[in-house]
């Protein structure tokens, strides 16, 4: 029973929240919706849940007009970015709440609640109130409640966004296992983090300004970003996108001409292009594109150097700690064999190693 969204549109106070969103969500798959803040991800989930009406479009599931189905009959569970639980109920009763509404037997309820609490590692916390738990634990309760119901549709709206970094990584790993045995449930998971989207998703939908820009497997989206916008959204740090010229397979960027022909670009006709290059494929060198350092981030074992070339910002990801200062004049070495080529409107024309992409599915 697929959930089919067709041309969903929503405008509130002159702002487009959803623009012709069309997507098919399949049972047993985990769909990650990745997009920046305000991309319309939450609105999409709320529309799917019935919490938010739409202006036009259709939403169907197994032939049923879902837009006419009230929230409480949509067979949908949702986990919010904020940790939302019933404050007056214990953890056990929180998880049992929807089961009671569904009219399950007492034994069945107890069994399912315990199973569900165990799966999120909260077996011993059933008698506590949500307010007596840490943020991570509260979110686990919300997830346990959503899982226990075994609904046909499970929506997770940036469930890890409000947790600290360590906990986020830990829960993300647990999710992988949790969602792998969800049977026929349609799982839809929104996030701003490429790593999360790629790691968890069977299908990735890239959303931007209310539109779905690309749908595909994580690998497809990562290796063949349909546009420069997709490329920047699905990479962390965002892919560097800059203008350049191509002549006989040789790339010129900001007046600096690459020494060698880039083999995968050789067949392209000469002219102006937009190029994309991941931060790991740029390095500092003694000769290359001239730029000025605007910002340096050191995170653990990596250094992110933000450089501006003319007016175009670059991010360079370097292994190890590097001694670079604000305002330093540097030269960037761009790996020509890793360049993505986009046309001037931003559509993908060539990926660096298209032989990789030919591996369909996973």
């Amino acid at each position, binding site marked *: 029973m697929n959930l089919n969204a067709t041309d969903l549109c929503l405008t509130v106070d002159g702002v487009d929240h959803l623009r012709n969103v069309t997507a098919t969500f399949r049972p047993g798959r985990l769909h990650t919706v990745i997009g920046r803040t305000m991309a319309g991800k939450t609105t999409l989930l709320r529309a799917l*849940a019935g919490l938010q009406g739409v202006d036009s479009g259709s939403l169907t599931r197994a032939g049923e007009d879902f837009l006419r189905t009230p929230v409480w009959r949509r067979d949908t569970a949702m986990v919010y970015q*904020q940790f939302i639980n019933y404050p*007056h109920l214990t953890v056990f009763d929180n998880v049992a709440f*929807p089961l009671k509404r569904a009219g399950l037997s007492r034994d069945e309820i107890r069994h399912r609640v315990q199973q569900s609490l165990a799966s999120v590692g909260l077996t011993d916390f059933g008698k506590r109130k949500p307010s007596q738990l840490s943020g991570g634990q509260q979110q686990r309760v919300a997830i346990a409640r959503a899982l226990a119901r075994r609904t046909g549709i499970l929506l997770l709206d940036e469930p890890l966004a409000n947790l600290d970094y360590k906990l986020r990584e830990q829960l993300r790993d647990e999710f992988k296992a949790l969602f792998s045995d969800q049977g026929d449930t349609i799982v839809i998971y929104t996030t701003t983090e490429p790593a999360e989207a790629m790691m968890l998703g069977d299908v990735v939908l890239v959303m931007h300004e209310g539109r779905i820009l690309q749908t595909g497997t994580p690998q497809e989206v990562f290796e063949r970003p349909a546009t420069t916008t997709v490329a920047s959204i699905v990479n962390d740090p965002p892919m560097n996108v800059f203008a350049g010229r191509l002549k006989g397979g040789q790339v010129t960027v900001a007046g600096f001409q690459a020494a060698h022909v880039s083999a995968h670009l050789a067949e392209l006709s000469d002219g102006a292009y937009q190029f994309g290059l991941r931060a790991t494929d740029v390095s500092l060198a003694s000769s290359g594109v001239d730029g000025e350092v605007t910002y340096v981030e050191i995170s653990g074992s990596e250094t992110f150097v933000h450089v501006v070339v003319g007016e175009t910002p670059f991010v360079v990801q370097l292994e190890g700690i590097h001694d670079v200062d604000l305002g330093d004049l540097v030269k960037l070495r761009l790996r020509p064999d890793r360049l993505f080529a986009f046309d001037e409107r931003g559509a993908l024309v060539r990926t660096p190693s298209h032989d990789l992409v030919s591996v369909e599915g996973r």
Partner: protein
Amino acid sequence: MRSRLYPVFKYTVIALWACFVAGPFFWAMTTSFKNANAVQGGPTYIPWAQYEPTLTGWRNIFGGAGGVDVVGPFVNSAIVTVAASAISLALGSLAAYALSRYRFRLGFIKNSDIVFFFVSQRIMPPVVLVIPFFYLLQWGGLLDTIPGLVIVTVALLLPIAVWVMVDFFNGIPREIDEMAMLDGCPPFQTFVRAILPNSLPGLTVAAMFCAVFGWNDFFFAFRLTFTEVQTLPQAVVALNSSIPPWWTLSAAALFGVAPLILLALWVERLLSKGNLSGAVR
């Protein structure tokens, strides 16, 4: 900089104000144990030292010979207060929930205008309403009955209930409603099972206001009930006279305000335990 004298000044002021506040209660208490001789001998304050205490006043209000009945009016007041408060709280929280959660639009009328309509009824002086109420109740055969008094008291209390509860519901995250609906509750169940249980602090405050204003209403009872149904404030005022059976009046007055003082103590306990701060963080 604060001088050393500041604490002296502070506690003197507090003590003076406390005397003023407690004075009438003290006076009523001491008078309630006097008899005619003790009252007519001029003001005295300390039992045994200044006058011989008797239980005449207290006996009078609990059915002593030649006394007055305050127990009946007490029961009437209690019934009217509880019934009117319950109706106001029920209707008021439902309306407040709707006003807090849904958008209403009827021409130029918006949610805030509806809230204002409710609250603005507090500006209506009882004296303006009482004559029409008289004929309305007479027409319905409800004059001088408890149901009649309950209906008009609801008009006094409903605005208070709506006012307190709209504010309170606005403080409960909407996501809780949404979650309850996703969990399978239709709107009314959502309200009963997910929102009301989290609204006890708000309901307590609203109930307290309703109880106080309901119990303390004099004017409606005074004009709309006479012989069959007498409320406590009516009974006490009936005792008020310049020729003093002051001991009876004082005892009746203390008896009449005792539930309110107990209520004040209880509410303070809740407040200090933090039970009345938001249940939802």
